[in-house]
Structures are given as C-alpha cells and as structure tokens.
C-alpha cells in the first residue's frame, strides 16, 4: 500500500478525521483506501511527561489498546518508565510543568 501525495481534483472526505478535503488542497491518496489530510497522515505520538520527548507509542506494549486520539496526551517513555523511582519522577516533572498544581 502506498500513499501518494496529490492535489485534490475533486472534493473528498478524509478517512481519518471524516472532514472534507477541498479541491486543490493536498491530500494523500491510496488506491482502494481513499484520501486523508496530510496532517492526519502524521504518526500520532504522546508526549513523555518526564523527559518531554515523544513517548515512543509505536513501540509501546499497549499500542493496540491505546487510542492515541482519545487518551490524555501526556504519558511516559520506556526509558523514563524503566528508571528507578519513575513514579516519583513523573509526579515531580508534572508539578514543574504545571506549577498551579502545587497551589
């Protein structure tokens, strides 16, 4: 399956977000599958609450049961998860990022 980047000749509906893709807008098209927005084609990644980097969702043990669009957007990456006191590290980092939680 290959997705081809094309300028839309006709309006279409994105298979990811179900929104319209207008004429002349750039969309990704695959035979038999349909079209999607360029933005929707990007691989979604949650953010690691400890190091601030990507959480590495594609390698996560829960990838099949984690709806990346729906869940709360801060998670923890494998490296930070495997560290000693990872839970305390997570809480400290969140407190630093969201100062108001220390109120």
């Amino acid at each position, binding site marked *: 399956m290959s997705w081809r980047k094309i300028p839309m000749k006709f309006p279409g509906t994105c298979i990811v977000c179900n929104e319209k893709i207008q004429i002349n807008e750039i969309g990704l098209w695959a035979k038999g599958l349909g079209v999607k927005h360029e933005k929707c084609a990007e691989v979604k990644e949650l953010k690691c609450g400890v190091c601030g980097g990507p959480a590495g969702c594609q390698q996560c043990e829960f990838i099949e049961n*984690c709806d990346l669009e729906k*869940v709360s957007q801060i998670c923890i990456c494998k490296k930070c998860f495997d560290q000693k006191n990872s839970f305390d590290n997570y809480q400290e980092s969140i407190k630093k990022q969201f100062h108001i939680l220390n109120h």
Partner: protein
Amino acid sequence: MWSEKHRPQSISEMVGNEEARAAIVEWFAKWKKGTKPLLLVGPPGIGKTTIANLSAKQFGYDMIGLNASDVRSKAQINDILSPVLGNVSVLGTPMIFVDEVDGIHGRSDYGGTEALINILKEPTVPMILAANSDSSDKMKSIKKVTKSIVFRPIPPRLLRLYLENIIKKEGAKISPGSVIKVIDESRGDIRSMINMTQSMVTGFNPSTEKSFETLNIEDGINAFFKSNTLDEARIVLYSMQIDPREKIIAFYSSIVTSRISNDDMQNMLQVVSEADILYGKIMKNQEWRLLRYLDAILIKLYKKDTSIRYNKFNLSWPLLNRLRWDGKNIKAFATVMAKQMHISRSTFGTFYLPYLLFCLKNKQFNFPLEESFGELVEKEMELIK
C-alpha cells in the same frame, strides 16, 4: 481495600489529565461569586469524583455531594440546595458537587434539570458537575451555563506506572504479563484496575484472569462464598456490577437451595430480607443514593467454608423436575377431564382434581381413566395424606 488505601491525597498525586487538573485548580484559585460552575465530562473511574473531593479538601470547602437521584425534581433541588445557597455562613464554606448529571433524563426528570440550570446561572458557592457524556440535549443546556473540562481516559502505560507503584508499596509480586492484562481489561477504569490487582495478589484469581465485571453472576456468587477472607468476599461483591435486583435474587435462590443448617439459613434469609427492604425503598422513592448500602448489607452473608453455590432457581432440582414433567402431564390430564366435565382446565386443576384424587384413593368410585394417565394419578394419590 487498596483502591481506598492508595487514593491520592492531593490533586498533584493523581495521574493523567494534567491539563484538566491544572484547569480545575486554576478555577478554584480564581473562584468568586458568579463564576461559571464546572462541568467535568469523562468516562467513569478516571477521577472526576476524586478530584472534586481533593479540591474541596485542598481549598478548604465542605463538599456537599449529590447525584442524579437527588436532583430529579424542582422541589428536591430546592429542599437540598436552598439552605446551602441562602445561608452560607451557618453552613461553613460549602461547595456543591453533583455527580452523574447526565443521569437525569427522560421520564426521571421532573423539572430537575431546569431548576438546576437556574441555580447554575447564578452560583453563590463553587459548584462542580460531573457527567459521563455531554452529548444529550439536556446536557447541551447545562453546558451553556457551565465551563466544560474534558477528562480523557488515561494512557495505559501511565496506568501501569501508577499500578506498579501501588504493587511496590504493598510489597506484592505480580508478573508483568498479568499487569498488562489487568490494565487492558480495566479499560482505563482505575478503581476497577486496582480492585482486580488486589484480587489477584490476595489469592483470589479467577481462572480466566478476567475482571469480576466480565464474570457472569454464577462465577461472582461462587467466588463470594469460596472467598478465604471477608475482605476478599467484599472485593468480589463490590465488583459484581450487575442489576441489584438480580444480585438479591441470585443470593436468595443460592441460599434456599443449599444444604446449610437451619440457623445459618435463618440468619442468611434475614440478611437477604434486609437487602430486599432497602431495594424496595430505593425503588419506591427512587432514592438511588441508598444503593451504596446494599453491598454493606449483603456482605453479612459471608461465612467461611460454607457449601453454598450458585443456583439460578429458588427450588431444588428434584422439585423443579417434578414441576416440569409432572406439571406437563397434569396439564394434559386436565385438558381431557375439563372437556368431559364441561369446565375450564384451571377450574379442574384447582377445585376438581384434589377431590377426584381423594375419591379414587378411598375407592369411593371407580373412574374410567385413560391408560396414559394411570401412572400420574397413582403418583398424585400417593402424595395425598
């Protein structure tokens, strides 16, 4: 229970929904009379009620918790909330939390939503509402007068971090595979995830490793009576998320068909009766908040090493068999006889049959019977004293 023991003590100790938590703290910090109430929207078990409790504690409010059943009618709302809204100084610094507002709908709403909206428009104390979904029409009107904060399901790996911290604190050991399984099965519901883990660690491990919610009533009742400790039985009972009526009936039928001593039977039936009375009260007045006490009553049924096992029917098997097979024959017999006597089948069964059997037994008269009914009549005659 672990879910109580490890309940977060402050908002910062919670996991997930960081932005939502920060927004709530900010709302509390800036709250003044007239500030739009909060509407927390999100699936069950992810901390909406917990954050309301913790915020009240953190900001020094006395939380008054209500749920949908308390706010069904205008009169109910006024009875409960008027004293709070009108006389703040006497009642300390109250904060109102209405849980499951999306539960007031259809025929259960006797003007409650409208009255609530009127109060929400001019709040004199902090008010927080919680709902599982905000898509209904009723919720649209509530959303207009509140500030919505969406609570999203917590990413499973973050749940794992939280759960492993609890396991570590408890000094328990559980395989990574089981942890992943528990998290997958709890579908983001933290309370259910902790309960399941405790069940596994404390020795009760259903063969399927499924949550109690996914176990059927039979497995739930059997697990309850097989529990080794009261705590274990309590976990099983609290996790059996089934219709309360069904729960009471299942316990009743299992008890009355089991071979236990008369004293035990009497005590247990007394408990079932208490539970039934409570359920009757709930249904009569629609006071669903009383439902939380049902399990506290049913836990009294627990007795270690009892032989009680689940039974769907409240009659013993021999009696059930008799009702099924003999009942069928009696019905056929009554159909034939009713025709001969020019009466209805039920009249024959109720009034004529006992006398007929009595006369036949005492050989008062000889009645020509079809051969196929001979055995049945013999059997019934034996039962007449």
